């Protein structure tokens, strides 16, 4: 990370970097609406303390002093954590998420909490109680979602990196739409403790940055075992920065044929081909692979995720914390009004879908059947990975869309945003999106999916690619922040 190097060489201070990041965040807030909460006092205090320690010659981690920001569903002790929901508008957690603890331990000042789709349900960041986030590349457009605030803040150069979460594509899709590198690690690589749950078997924390090198450095900070998450993998975390240097020679890239139903625009197709050509020229081989059940992905996802969410979001009931309605007549009125007022439309819809697919008489046909289909998807990937090391696909179907454009009578229009990304969540595999160029002036990305726990490999591919291309160096006009 360039900022980290400048800090180490004494060219600047953490306080200066943090102050500048806060200034940019405030200046861009009207345009982008990327932040829900800014934490200037905490961030500057940490920055000064890092500067003092550095001046005293203390040994500090590689990212110490570099400002960053968290998606607003990572619990932060003493700092409100809203999940983009009215339900948690007043929620101030008494504890830190594991990811937040790790970032603190790395001594990175956290300048604020980033806007998002409510409870991470959405692909446009329009489902936030705090309003939509705008895409720095075109303020009329969505930055994608649900980690839309994270993507906008990094793309606008406010911070060099931010955390995000990805349940069906919520890191990779906004990364693609904002010209960033966004990585969703393997399921279990990053602790979910303190990360407010949407769909527990699919959720995974990750990072959004400008390039693969920064992603490797930041992922290094947040990855690793945590005994408070029974689904967190207890395996050593490799040195991701070292793995970036792995040569590309002999790496087999699998190219799935999705058929006509998944057609992307010719201009995007050309960028995809150019990216593949570039990787080939760097020594990678390509093979074609089959993912015959990929078309089922969205439907499976929209059974399993709402089912899990219907239980995960039951705890928001107006009794123990969060929004409570005024003057409830009785307990049922307290539940119903608190929840109806606290949750937005998309959340209410999804938990009702979840209740439906688990309900007596429907469980076998929907939920159990979706679990069987999920195994079919997993098998597809297992079989593909016998022929290749990495799978390459488009990340999105098209570049960023206009805000409001997909707020139609049919919510499933927007659900298709996850078409290419949802498979990695269903199968628990690591996936990243990296910038590969522009269609009509808006960025698009390519997705790389690796075997479980092979984050290092997909990051090294992206890094090699970025050493020979400059798409990732382009910044949105009007946001010339030096946050990179």
């Amino acid at each position, binding site marked *: 990370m360039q900022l980290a190097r400048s800090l180490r060489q004494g060219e600047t201070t953490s306080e200066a970097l943090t102050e500048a990041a806060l200034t940019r965040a405030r200046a861009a807030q009207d345009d982008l609406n990327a932040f829900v909460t800014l934490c200037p006092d905490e961030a500057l205090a940490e920055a000064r303390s890092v500067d003092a320690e550095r001046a005293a010659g203390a040994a500090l981690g590689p990212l110490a002093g570099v400002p960053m920001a968290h998606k607003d569903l990572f*619990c932060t002790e003493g700092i409100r954590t809203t999940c983009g929901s009215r339900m948690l508008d007043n929620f101030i957690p008494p504890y830190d998420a594991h990811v937040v603890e790790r970032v603190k331990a790395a001594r990175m000042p956290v300048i604020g909490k980033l806007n998002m789709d409510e409870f991470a349900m959405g692909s446009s960041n329009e489902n936030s109680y705090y309003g939509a986030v705008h895409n720095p590349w075109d303020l009329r457009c969505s930055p994608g979602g649900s980690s839309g605030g994270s993507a906008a803040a990094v793309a606008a150069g406010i911070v060099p990196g931010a955390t995000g979460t990805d349940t069906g594509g919520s890191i990779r899709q906004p990364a693609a739409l904002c010209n960033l590198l966004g990585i969703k690690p393997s399921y279990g690589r990053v602790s979910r403790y303190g990360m407010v749950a949407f769909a527990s078997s699919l959720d995974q924390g990750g990072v959004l940055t400008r390039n693969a090198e920064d992603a490797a450095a930041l992922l290094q900070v947040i990855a690793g075992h945590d005994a408070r998450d*029974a689904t967190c993998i207890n395996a050593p975390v490799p040195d991701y920065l070292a793995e970036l240097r792995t040569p590309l020679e002999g790496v087999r890239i699998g190219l799935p044929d999705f058929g006509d139903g998944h057609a992307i625009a010719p201009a995007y197709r050309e960028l995809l081909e150019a990216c593949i050509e570039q990787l080939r020229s760097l020594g990678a081989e390509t093979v074609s692979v089959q993912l015959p059940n990929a078309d089922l992905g969205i439907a499976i996802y929209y059974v399993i995720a709402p089912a899990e969410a219907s239980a995960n979001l039951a*705890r928001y009931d107006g009794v123990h914390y969060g929004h409570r309605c005024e003057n409830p007549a009785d*307990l049922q009125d307290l539940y119903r009004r608190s929840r109806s007022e606290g949750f937005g439309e998309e959340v209410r819809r999804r938990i009702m879908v979840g209740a439906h697919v688990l*309900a*007596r008489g429907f*469980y076998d046909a929907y939920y159990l059947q979706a679990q069987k289909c999920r195994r079919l998807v997993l098998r597809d990937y297992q079989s593909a990975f016998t022929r290749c090391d990495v799978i390459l696909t488009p990340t999105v179907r098209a570049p960023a869309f206009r805000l409001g454009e997909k707020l139609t009578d049919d919510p499933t229009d927007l659900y298709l945003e996850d078409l290419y990304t949802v498979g990695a969540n269903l199968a628990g595999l690591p996936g990243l999106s990296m910038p590969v160029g522009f269609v009509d002036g808006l960025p698009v990305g390519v997705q790389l999916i690796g075997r479980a726990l092979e984050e290092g490999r997909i990051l090294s591919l992206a890094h090699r690619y970025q050493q020979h291309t400059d798409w990732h160096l382009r910044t949105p006009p009007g946001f010339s922040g030096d946050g990179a």
Partner: protein
Amino acid sequence: MSWQTVIGLELHIQLHTRSKLFCGSPNAFGGAPNSRAGEVDSALPGTLPVINREAVGMAVQLGLALGAEINRTSVFVRKNYFYPDLPKNYQISQLQEPVFGAGTVEVPMPDGGTLSVRINHAHLEEDAGRLVHDVFAERSAVDLNRAGVPLIEVVSEPDMHSPEEAVAYARALHRIVRYLGICSGNLSRGELRCDANVSVRPDPEAPLGTRTELKNINSFRFIGRAIEIEAARQLRILKSGGEVAPQTLLFDPDRDIVQPMREKDTESDYRYFPDPDLLPVYVDDDWLEELRSGMPAPQDEVIRRYEEEFGLTDQVARQVAADVHSMDYFDRVRTLCGDAALAGNWMAGALTGALHRDGLELERCPMPAETLGELLRTLVQGGISSSAAKKIFESLWSEPGSVDERIDRLGLRALTDSDALKDAVEAVIAGNPGQVEQYRAGRTKVLGYLIGQVMQATGGTADAKTVNRLMRERLDQPGGDPQS
């Protein structure tokens, strides 16, 4: 017609772990409201459950004791319903793959016979908190101290046919869990609670009648009484040609009636599904063997051994062999003091008395077995008198410390120095010439009086046996009274 009552019981047994089932909050009764509820058991956003190994082990041991089929792999599911004492608004429980399956309880009946009650299965789950209605006039109050306490629910087959059989079965299971040391078994604290399914049929060959469920009965006497009332009610209905409605009932001991529960707030569709925060629990061969070998020998065997090998009376043997904690305590005291009968008597006497007085269980005993063992060893070796031992015991009970230090502080070390004792004997003889004369005239009963005088003079520190010997020797001296 020979009407038959058919009863199946579900016993909810709190497991006596140190921490709760899914987090490190202390598992203890009482305490200020919500003082034993942390972020996980209060279901704060982002928190996650991690299973307590000890709770699984205890459940498996119960299964082994009942000769049940242990499910090597068991699965936790979410049971979804809204209630204020259930902060997640789902209970983590088990359904299709519980911790153990079919087993048997051999129930000793008052007539000396045995009733075999088949166990259908038992599942491990978390207890709910408490919803209290009598603290505030206008509000119900939620205390989450009990939320997350491990419960094993043992579900019997409908093998009981009278209130007496049901009570005998509940008592038998109560004795087993107490003996295994997995539950303290205090019914008044809700450590064992009972649901009873009751139906009545015209004769034992007829198909089972419609059953009702009596919920949450918390004493053996009430189990019997509630079933008696309900069976009689059903019989009246059936005899008059009516139909029993399947419903959930509550027993009101004050009014001695059963009445239907309000159905308004109860859920009719629990939408069970596997908890995605918890992967299946696996009990491997090593663990199973460790659990098996950690279990005590059958209780009847232990009682017989205590009587035959150590000479304990039947009553003392039963008391000492009440559970593994008591047996372990006994073994340590017995080994240290070298007198098993004495150890047994003290445990059944002074120790039990003190525990009762302070409302404590042996696991919370303020006096370590080592201290009692040391005290009794000193007594056996004549270093203190019996009455002194009792004083020292009480002193150490209220203020723990070392036996030696306490003997000295209380000045209770036995006068074993013969010269000093001889002087005391001489003084008593000199001071009671009349009694001495009576004794020598053959009225030997006055010996007791004279010994008592010595004991009094030495403040109870003298060893009564030694005084007795010295006094006899002196009185029986052929030389008669040295003063004469």
